[in-house]
């Protein structure tokens, strides 16, 4: 669904990512690791089209990123759930409306999905914070909210950048279980993380592949992880 072909990127200085080829297919589960500053977030941004790579081709759901219209790009984004590393919200809207925002943007009535929304909030442990404004949330609560917003539309692909960095182990497992559940429904999942325990736990339940960015290259980590 998302295909990168010989992609390279540089932010102006030296090349950060070189010659990366990868494809996300339905039902796949990937982890992305690599040292801090290696380019994991950059890789994810290329995957959902926030960044246009300096070289190579990106296809989103069959369309070439370079020839896509802006509206086609917006429509494509609705099929991709994104958890940004620095979770950003509309600070003036209560949490529940923030999480329902993708519905509004897609022209659907958020009221229809009220039940789903409530169940989702409860699952990520934010049931009692539905009316809180985002700036009053704790770091971990923001991450959970970002994940909830990413999955509310039940997208085909979920890209999560460090979604458990501020979470305790129990809550991390809870989120992992939600993602595994979605993966079993056929969604493609890609999680950038530093948490090796999380990766190990996931591998015990689903056939997850671990990608590694090191030395500007994308490699597949072996069983040694």
């Amino acid at each position, binding site marked *: 669904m998302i295909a990168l072909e010989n992609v390279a990127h540089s932010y102006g200085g030296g090349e950060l990512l070189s010659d990366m080829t990868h494809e996300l297919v339905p039902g796949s589960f990937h982890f992305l690791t690599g040292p801090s500053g290696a380019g994991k977030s950059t890789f994810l941004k290329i995957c959902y089209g926030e960044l246009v790579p300096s070289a190579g081709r990106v296809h989103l759901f069959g369309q070439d990123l370079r020839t896509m219209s802006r*509206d086609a*790009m*917006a*429509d*494509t*984004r609705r099929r991709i759930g994104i958890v940004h590393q620095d979770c950003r919200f509309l600070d003036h809207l209560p949490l529940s409306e923030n999480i329902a925002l993708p519905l509004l943007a897609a022209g659907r009535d958020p009221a229809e999905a009220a039940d789903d929304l409530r169940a989702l909030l409860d699952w990520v442990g934010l049931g009692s914070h539905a009316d809180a404004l985002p700036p009053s949330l704790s770091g971990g609560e923001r991450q959970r909210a970002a994940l909830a917003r990413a999955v509310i539309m039940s997208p085909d692909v979920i890209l999560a950048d460090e979604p458990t960095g501020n979470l305790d182990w129990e809550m991390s497992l809870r989120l992992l279980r939600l993602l595994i559940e979605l993966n079993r429904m056929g969604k493609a999942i890609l999680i950038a993380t530093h948490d090796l325990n999380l990766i190990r736990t996931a591998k015990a339940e689903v056939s997850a592949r671990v990608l590694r960015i090191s030395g500007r290259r994308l490699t597949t980590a072996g069983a040694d992880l």
Partner: protein
Amino acid sequence: MIRPGTFLQRAEGNTGRVVPPSGFTARLTIFSAAAMAFLAVFALALALAAGRMADRWDAALADTATIRIAAPQGQMETQTAIVQEILRTTPGVTEARVLPVEESRALLEPWFGPDLPIESLAIPQLIAVRTAAPGFDAQSLRLRLSAEAPGAVLDDHTRWRQPLVRAAARLRSLGFAAIGLIGATVAAMIVLAAQAALSANAQVITVLRLIGARDAFIARAFVRRFTLRAFGGAVAGTALGMLALALMPGDPATGAFLTDIGFHGAEWLSPLLIPPFAAITAFIATRAAALRRLKELT
């Protein structure tokens, strides 16, 4: 401080909620629009008064002339008749009126006092002439008069008119310049306020774009809000300005231009153009700024 009324919020509907409802950019937009509208009302009144005065001068002087007949007592009536006959056949003369003695006396009164023994004076006979600009040729009339009625002299007021007409022209351009200036300032303030709001809400725009909102959706939320704010502010400013003008103690008796600033009759409708102008400016400015900003994001 002027605040957006609930009507503004209601007019925005559901989409508008994605933009923060108030804050400093809201106040800034509303206040700029209101202040500029207020000033614009005064500039408009000034320009209209200037135009009125220019018109008055033009009308009063441009198309009038005076013929003065100085002749011995006996010949006065004959010469007057001859001049009237000449005027009747002169192209471009629309009206010729022999001034009765009372009017001549009224003209002289400031200088001689009411008890001037006008009958005993051999004062000249005055004929007020009204002319139509294109057809009238002062030079040829002068030639005919000197040939047929040697006591008659044509005064086409050129000496008085020239500087006044110049002044009137300058006055008109001054009025238009003032309006243009205010208009440009309104537009610039609204553009800047819109850009300020977009910058302040950069995060809102980024978030919306990332969750798959189309450009039109995002732009609409901002454009609607800003258009309404600019309109609301301009309505308030215009209303205040008109109120201030209406409450200004009028003194039309003096007839002096400067005390005549204000609107007459249908002119009261003209400031009503200010709020739509502000709204249209805000619409265009915000739309352009929003779309430009969105283009920076993929």
